[in-house]
């Protein structure tokens, strides 16, 4: 196991820049998830780490050793592919053994490794089968087993769950997390699924258009998104992003939200940060998570909670809770409420918003005002 340093990694195809100056440092045992919409460069970055593509600039270090000029085989890295990439002509045992055989590991040692990996992943009964005789989940396990067999310094996972059905995906997600905890391995994992990113990562790198948007813990990325893209991309339902005027009020500042015909909604902001105060009188983009809002009815407001009125447009019960789409001063605004909430479309109601969860973005740069 080892640390991984990406230093100013760049990639361009002719005039097209695919990756812009990516720098990420991982310490031993970290689980980094590269996440972003398709075409954001996350797979290219992973291929560069694997050595399957050459960077146009920058350097890669694995455990302090410069691996930039090394061939994939010489990097001591294993990779699990989206399609599993099991060799169709070999049995499961031969598949797991393959990276060891290629490295001329002794036969008895190989058999021992295959056995221990198979036990760990509970695939002992499949060892004599061919990949085509396996189900998706079993193939996934074998692919992971093949990666484990060699005990590399770094594991790469390229969207390993996206070919599985929904239930299996959840199970395998938990398995991968368990495996990470048990092995303490350094892992880089690519996905376009932000929930996978949140649940698995110790750190998340959000990418868009070849640019690293934010690198941080799941908590940071979720609660302090670096810009409106990250705010909108991470979390389901997405964070509400509403243009508001930041007005001076008696006890500090207030957000004034109005768009179109609807009456203005005014939400006081208690104890604003100095950075936010600097925007007083101007416009900002206010970001509020769906779960930062609750129904005011009969509840005492907390110290950071402030009320506002809005009209109910749609209610969407999901079972565990009910998503309610509000009209907030002319803006669509989704809130997550109790499952048994009694609200009718068209009804006006009063809500409480927890302003300790408020994040504001600059309207021009769309960056977090912090």
């Amino acid at each position, binding site marked *: 196991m080892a640390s991984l340093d990406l230093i100013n990694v760049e990639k361009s195809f002719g005039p097209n820049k695919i990756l812009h100056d990516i720098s990420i440092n991982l310490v031993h045992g970290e689980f980094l998830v590269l996440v972003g919409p398709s075409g954001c460069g996350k797979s290219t970055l992973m291929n560069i780490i*694997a*050595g*399957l593509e050459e960077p146009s600039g920058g350097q890669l270090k694995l455990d302090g050793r410069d691996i930039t000029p090394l*061939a*994939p*085989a010489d*990097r001591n*890295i*294993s*990779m699990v*592919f*989206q*399609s599993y*990439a099991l*060799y*169709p*002509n*070999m049995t499961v045992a031969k598949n797991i053994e*393959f*990276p060891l055989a*290629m*490295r001329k590991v002794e036969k008895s040692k190989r058999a021992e490794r295959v056995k221990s990996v198979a036990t760990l992943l509970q695939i002992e009964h499949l060892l004599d089968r061919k990949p085509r005789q396996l189900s998706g989940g079993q193939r996934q396990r074998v692919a992971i087993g*093949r990666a484990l067999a*060699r005990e590399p310094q770094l594991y790469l996972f390229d969207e390993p769950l996206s070919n599985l059905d929904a239930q299996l995906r959840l199970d395998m997600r938990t398995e991968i997390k368990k495996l990470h905890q048990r092995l303490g391995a350094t892992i880089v994992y690519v996905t376009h699924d932000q929930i996978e990113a949140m649940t698995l990562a110790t750190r998340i790198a959000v990418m868009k258009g070849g640019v690293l948007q934010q690198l941080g813990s799941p908590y940071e990325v979720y609660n302090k998104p670096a810009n409106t893209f990250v705010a909108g991309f991470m979390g389901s339902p997405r964070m509400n992003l509403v243009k508001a005027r930041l007005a001076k009020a008696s006890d500090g500042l207030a957000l004034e939200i109005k768009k179109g015909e609807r009456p203005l909604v005014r939400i006081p902001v208690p104890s604003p940060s100095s950075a936010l105060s600097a925007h007083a009188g101007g416009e900002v983009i206010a970001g509020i998570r769906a779960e930062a809002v609750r129904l005011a009815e009969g509840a005492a407001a907390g110290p950071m909670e402030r009320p506002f009125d809005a009209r109910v447009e749609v209610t969407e019960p999901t079972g565990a809770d009910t998503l309610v789409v509000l009209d907030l001063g002319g803006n669509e605004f989704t809130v997550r409420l109790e499952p048994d909430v009694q609200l009718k479309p068209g009804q006006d109601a009063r809500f409480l918003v927890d302003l300790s969860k408020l994040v504001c973005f600059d309207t021009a740069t769309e960056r977090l005002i912090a």
Partner: protein
Amino acid sequence: MPEQRSSGIVLQRVFLYAVLLSLALLFLLPVYVMVCNSLKPLDEIRSGNLMALPIEWTIEPWLTAWSTAQIGVQPTGLKPYFYNSFLLVVPAVVISTLIGALNGYILTQFRFRGANALFAAMLFSVFIPFQIVLIPMAKTLGVLGMAGTVKGLIFVNSVYGIGFTTLFFRNYYAAFPQELVRSARIDGADFFGVLFRILLPSSGPIIVVTVIWQFTNIWNEFLFGASFSDFSSFPITVALNNLVNSSTGVKEYNVHFAGAFIAAVPTLIVYLVSGKYFVRGLMAGSVKG
């Protein structure tokens, strides 16, 4: 409604089978004539109807064609030349197939500058008529010291086959999952490791196609055989030609028929044994491109 439709389908089927059957009979007619007349004494052929079954059955013409018929000046029958053809075809097929696989692997897995132009050039070689290369090839064989030998024919046929075999393997490997190759590279397989451990073991269908294609072409090839071989190294096609042309006095049609059939037997067997893989392999290569 359903009954009407099903009777329509039955009628369609009957028509279809009638057409197919009559076409099959038409194509089989020459085979019938060959086999039937090769089993007759010469008198019966000369006096009778080509289509009639033999009155007196005999395998004498087959034995003559195989071991005693006059080929040029030697009364050796087709036997030694049949053997020559095998000595020629087997190595030529193996060599051209392996080189085709290697080319296909390189052209698809290493996207180097000019790969497509190179492939186009190799594809072009498929369309070069044999006659054009006769003189340069004769010169080349002379320089290599392989003129008039089976080795020389192996060389010529291998070189000529590479265009086709490259085309087959390149298209097959273009549809081969890239991730498998990438995975093998990360797992530590080197250049030939990927080819021999990953690509070739998964290439069954296209290997069958290539082998059938090359086997039939080289077995039936006449021009190179006639141009670049001498009495000791004639392939079967040239020997058959000589058999037919070197009869003294009477034309022994029954022997000629038997000889022609003997020359065709290996390709027939190859088709019968692996014909279904041939079609399957062509499909596998072409579905995803």
